[in-house]
């Protein structure tokens, strides 16, 4: 009797530790994988796609950590960072860089740009304490709209980016033309369980591991992890948990919040460059509009709350979230032929998760 009871509490402890939504969504993903296998869809392809998409989205999700830790909530203004990254990326193309040079110049230009914009955005957040998440959402929407104009008006000449008729930049820019597509993904790429054996270098079948892309994701993870063990990072976390405590220890909270949002914006900018090369296309205009929501949902599924997030939440979250949707699409298409149910499912789960997490925010910390 006693034994049974103890076992029960341990199970509950595990659920509490990982978090119910994480386990529920993770379980659902595994269920879908099994269903997919039973329906004759290649599980290996599904896993391969999952890893690819997780690598593409990883840094964008990581951008949530600094802003959540600083107490400004999930960075719903991720599009701010994203357009910085896109702008750096198109500038790099315009100046004629190709291949690796294009990638490095894009990132090198994105960082100072995102720092400046992130600083201004941080100032804005400090002016609207208490309603950061709402303001962030609309900041994101506004900047995407403003940039729609900019993409049209910008006097860039590169034939790789312009419309065939008229002025302005194309909606999707193919990165093949400048040798930028999959440049990171193909770096040290190998595949597991392919046709040619357990591990194949540069393999095309099996579970393809985009080593370069994953590497840069993990490097960013380590940097963020280290940063939150540094003096400045600890000050940001303390200011996020208990502003009064931090203030009484002589910490300038407003500056901490600005620092965190600068970091978040930079990660958003780098994230979109990595995303674009993995996708093979850079998407301009309204494409970044909803990017924040997927990233917010991913970090929350990973176990973060709207006031506390760790790097581990990012890694778990991006895997489960992207896994769920890469798997749900083909499985749903098999089950309900000719319907767009998977997209509906995606919206329900993505927004449901955000809604759930926001209801869990404990008030009174401001």
């Amino acid at each position, binding site marked *: 009797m006693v034994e049974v009871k103890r076992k029960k509490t341990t199970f509950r402890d595990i659920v509490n530790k990982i978090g119910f939504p994480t386990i529920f969504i993770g379980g659902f993903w595994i269920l879908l994988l099994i269903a997919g296998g039973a329906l004759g869809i290649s599980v290996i392809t599904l896993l391969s796609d999952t890893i690819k998409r997780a690598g593409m989205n990883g840094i964008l999700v990581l951008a949530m950590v600094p802003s959540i830790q600083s107490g400004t909530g999930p960075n719903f203004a991720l599009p701010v960072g994203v357009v910085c990254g896109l702008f750096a990326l198109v500038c790099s193309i315009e100046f004629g860089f190709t291949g690796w040079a294009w990638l490095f110049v894009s990132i090198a230009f994105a960082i100072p740009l995102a720092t400046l914009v992130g600083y201004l955005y941080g100032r804005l957040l400090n002016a609207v304490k208490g309603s950061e998440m709402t303001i962030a959402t609309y900041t994101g929407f506004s900047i995407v709209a403003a940039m729609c104009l900019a993409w049209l008006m910008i006097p860039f000449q590169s034939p790789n980016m312009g419309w065939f008729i008229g002025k302005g930049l194309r909606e999707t820019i193919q990165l093949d033309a400048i040798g930028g597509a999959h440049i990171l993904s193909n770096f040290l790429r190998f595949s597991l369980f392919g046709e040619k054996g357990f591990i194949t270098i540069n393999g095309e079948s099996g579970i393809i591991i985009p080593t370069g892309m994953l590497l840069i994701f993990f490097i960013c993870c380590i940097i963020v992890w*280290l940063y939150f063990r540094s003096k400045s990072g600890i000050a940001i976390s*303390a200011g996020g948990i*208990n502003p009064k*405590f931090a203030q009484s220890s002589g910490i300038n909270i407003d500056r901490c919040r600005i620092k965190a949002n600068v970091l978040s914006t930079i990660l958003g900018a780098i994230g979109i460059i990595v995303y674009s090369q993995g996708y093979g296309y850079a998407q301009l205009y309204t494409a970044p509009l909803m990017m924040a929501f997927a990233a917010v949902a991913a970090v929350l599924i990973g176990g973060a709350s709207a006031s506390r997030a760790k790097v581990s939440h990012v890694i778990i979250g991006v895997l489960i979230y992207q896994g769920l949707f890469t798997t749900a699409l083909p499985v749903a298409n098999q089950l309900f032929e000719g319907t767009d149910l998977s997209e509906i499912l995606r919206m329900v789960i993505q927004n449901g998760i955000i809604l759930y997490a926001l209801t869990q925010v404990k008030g009174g910390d401001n």
Partner: protein
Amino acid sequence: MSDNLLSLKNVSKEYSGNKVLKDINIELKRGEIHALIGENGAGKSTLMNILFGMSVIHTTGGFEGTIEIEGKEANIKSPHDAMDYGIGMVHQEFMLIPGFTIMENIKLNREITKPNLVSSIFGKRLETLNIKRMNEDTRKALDLLDMDIEEYVQVAGLPVGHMQFIEIAREIDKTGLKILVFDEPTAVLTETEAANLLKAMKKLAQKGIGILFISHRLDEIIEVADAVTVLRDGEHVATKNIEDTNKYEIAQLMVGRSITLDREEGLNRNIVDETILDIKNLHVAMPGERVKGVDLKVKKGEIVGIGGLAGQGKLGIANGLMGIFPAKGEVEFKGKKSALNDPKSAIKSGMAFVSEDRKGVGLLLDESIESNIVFSAMQINNEFLNNFGPVKLKDSAKIREHANKMIKDLDIRCTSSMQRVGSLSGGNQQKVCVARALTLNPELLLVSEPTRGIDIGAKKLVLDLLKQLNNEGMTIIMTSSELAELRSICDRILIICEGKVEGELPPDAPDAEFGLMMSGSGNGNSEGREA
């Protein structure tokens, strides 16, 4: 039946096994002003919560004893019941809507209406307001209070004195009002406003309304009340007719304690004749604890106590010095002018603060003991860090070592230095706060309410710790609501009243003098003290 309007008989109340009220008996006659006095935590608010049937009483198991109104047992289950029985309350904080006129505020939710076409179809809620009759009613209530202000004036922008009167007017406008409770009504008023209020109270009493007057201003009580009941630590100490007593006796009854912490003289007191802290005309805008011009000199090696009732500003002093609330004035620390409104420079100059708000300001409850202990030192003094060029990462080994030393030195009861602070007991949380302050190696330690919310055994440990630190040469300013603990360790005690220093007493001064000073009537007796 009898002359008694309200009688509380043997009223007791427990909060989870902790008796906060023991056998209180109060009788209020028609037309009587009955004062209720006691220190903070004496049980005044609990008693009022019972009288008004507040839900906090019923959700924690109700109370014992009976309440009788006009000789009949009353069963008050909610504030609404209390209103039906004719009990009204004038709140300390005004519950008025600024954008409404005086009449609208007074008549809110008790509007007089007349039917119209729409309401005959859709019901009573849509009836037209009878502005004329409401204005007449309001006029009557205002006239009773000698207020010559127009009833259609907006409340916003009126002086606080007027707002207080509008609150009273609202209560007396209610039909069938028999008992009116005033909860420290003069705390926010100027002297003339307060005098007017007392006059109004007398006038109301003459109309046959029974008044319960909660106040800690002894002079007012002597002036206006017919009888006074003193509460102390939830016990009914005495009820006296005002003619039979004086403020000296009331003060003594209020402060005198059955349990006292013994004072043992420190063996090696090493007070140096060197002023370490010199405060001149300090003003602090801490909400609810405003400081309005305090002068204080502290000698090196002293333990200075700051006492007084809640809301008088004693807590504001330390918070102002540490830059947590906006402050102005002149502060010299160690002979150098100290910048106000800058927590960082205050900590850097050698001051450390243990806040009265342990859970709010003092601790990161979800973080480990060790993170809490080293946090300030790491941020301000760059300790416990490993430097890699410009990158400063925390030095976990050093942090662990220091935390373990503190845990041992201060005897913090915990499973390890990694334990969450939120899961510690109150006394141990307090020790973590002290440990964080000590990690800064301060020369001056400011401690506010060090024993709030911790049990009696832990209290002694915390006080002993402060004494021990003082013996090792640290200067301490301790702010506390508990006079007994100030008297047990301080060299001298300042009593703060209305944001200013009311006076200074040695710890062995008689109870009554402390009581008088806390009530703001210390100056009258100062000659007696010197003698």
